[in-house]
């Protein structure tokens, strides 16, 4: 089984429930860092990462600029900034124009992560109401990474999964439970490989 270095997840409307369903079942020893963009209104508070941190075994925090990306942590993009990954595996942030009406934008994170992690990246698109992430996921695939999309008929809002599927030949189209067990299995493989 091919080894992966990082998971990126993008979602908007309905994302809180979807993220909770996946992240709360991942085991404490999960080996990959997970970088998340969830669209939020500009005046939202920091409920999202606190809430997820309470429910998950993994440590969930807001990504800060210059921070080194560490395995087994979940990083949430802060509101009002695009989140990018540097070659040094550190985060950078940008105050910039919205992309697809969104800041943070999923496309921006996915494209910069694909640049850095190339074939070792897993890109995941979940429920959402616009088409942000479709181009980003295409870039993940172009760099040889693995693409996963939530099955549209299982998504609270199906636009975003559908847009992603429309643009790229997706490797796995799965329900939330299936995505969670897929990632967990991957981790078990990584575990034995490392022994």
């Amino acid at each position: 089984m091919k080894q992966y270095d990082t998971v990126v997840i993008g979602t908007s409307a309905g994302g809180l429930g979807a993220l909770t369903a996946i992240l709360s079942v991942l085991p404490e020893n999960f080996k990959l860092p997970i970088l998340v963009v969830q669209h939020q209104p500009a005046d939202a508070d920091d409920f999202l990462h606190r809430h997820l941190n309470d429910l998950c075994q993994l440590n969930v925090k807001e990504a800060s600029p210059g921070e080194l990306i560490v395995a087994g942590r979940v990083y949430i993009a802060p509101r009002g900034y695009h989140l990018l990954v540097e070659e040094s595996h550190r985060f950078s942030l940008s105050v910039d124009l919205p992309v697809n009406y969104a800041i943070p934008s999923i496309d921006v994170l996915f494209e910069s992560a694909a640049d850095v992690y190339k074939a070792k990246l897993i890109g995941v698109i979940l429920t959402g109401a616009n088409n942000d992430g479709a181009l980003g996921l295409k870039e993940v695939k172009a760099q040889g990474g693995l693409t996963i999309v939530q099955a549209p008929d299982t998504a609270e809002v199906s636009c975003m999964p559908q847009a992603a599927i429309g643009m790229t030949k997706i490797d796995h189209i799965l329900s939330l439970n299936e995505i969670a067990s897929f990632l967990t299995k991957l981790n078990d493989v990584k575990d034995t490989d490392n022994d």
Partner: protein
Amino acid sequence: MKNKKNIENDEIDCLLEAIWRRYGYDFRHYSRASIKRRIRHHMGLSDCQHISEMIPKIFHDESFFESLLNDLSISVTQMFRDPVVFNSIRQQIFPKLKTYARINIWHAGCSTGEEAYTLAILLEEEGLLNRAQIYATDFNNASIDKASRGIYPLKSLQNCNELYLSSGGKHKISDYYHANYEAIKFKQSLVDHITFAHHNLTCDQVFAQMHLILCRNVLIYFDKTLQNHVLDLCRDSLVSQGFLVLGDKENLDFTSVREDFDNFSQPHRIYRKRAGW
């Protein structure tokens, strides 16, 4: 053999080197991921197929450089961004500045000027504007030109009154400008206390005797080396016990000036230069 992406990184290195040699603008210490995005975006608008094709244009076409610079400098800004911070400047910093006969403020990386006008409004409401001078600087001449005109599209002020009120605003934001259908112009009494000027944080000199420096959402684009350089500049420009305000996601931890400043209001990224410095 190098793959396509590694070649692209080398092309970007060469392009930034060309900009540096030809114009003295140093983007080599900017965070690469943002720069790469901007360069790709700019290439998409040009007739170049590869990033390296932009290099001869950099050397021989100044207008091409100007427009690339405009893209690289990321000039997005707004009035009263993070209103709680401006409230804290109003409530906590201004009372400490009241003792000075003349108040010097440096706004570094002011972009198109919205934050400088924000500050002028605050000073006016706290009765300090008549003794204050704001030096607002940026290295992007197009932004500085726009800032000096003080004219903004009316629609860019959407939600602005709300933000203004949550920053502790005492009147209506519309008291501070003249408006027609599409545009607003800030009142001359505010404009008179702001000097907009070109200044490049990577290579230009300190500003002497500043009581307050705002440098928000600029350091996030810089690597550690350049951050330390700019923070040294800020420290050396401040009077003893002067104030430094950074952006919401910026802080002094792990920087070369950490020991030179006390935390004044940690959640609002407000620092105060230690006495005796």
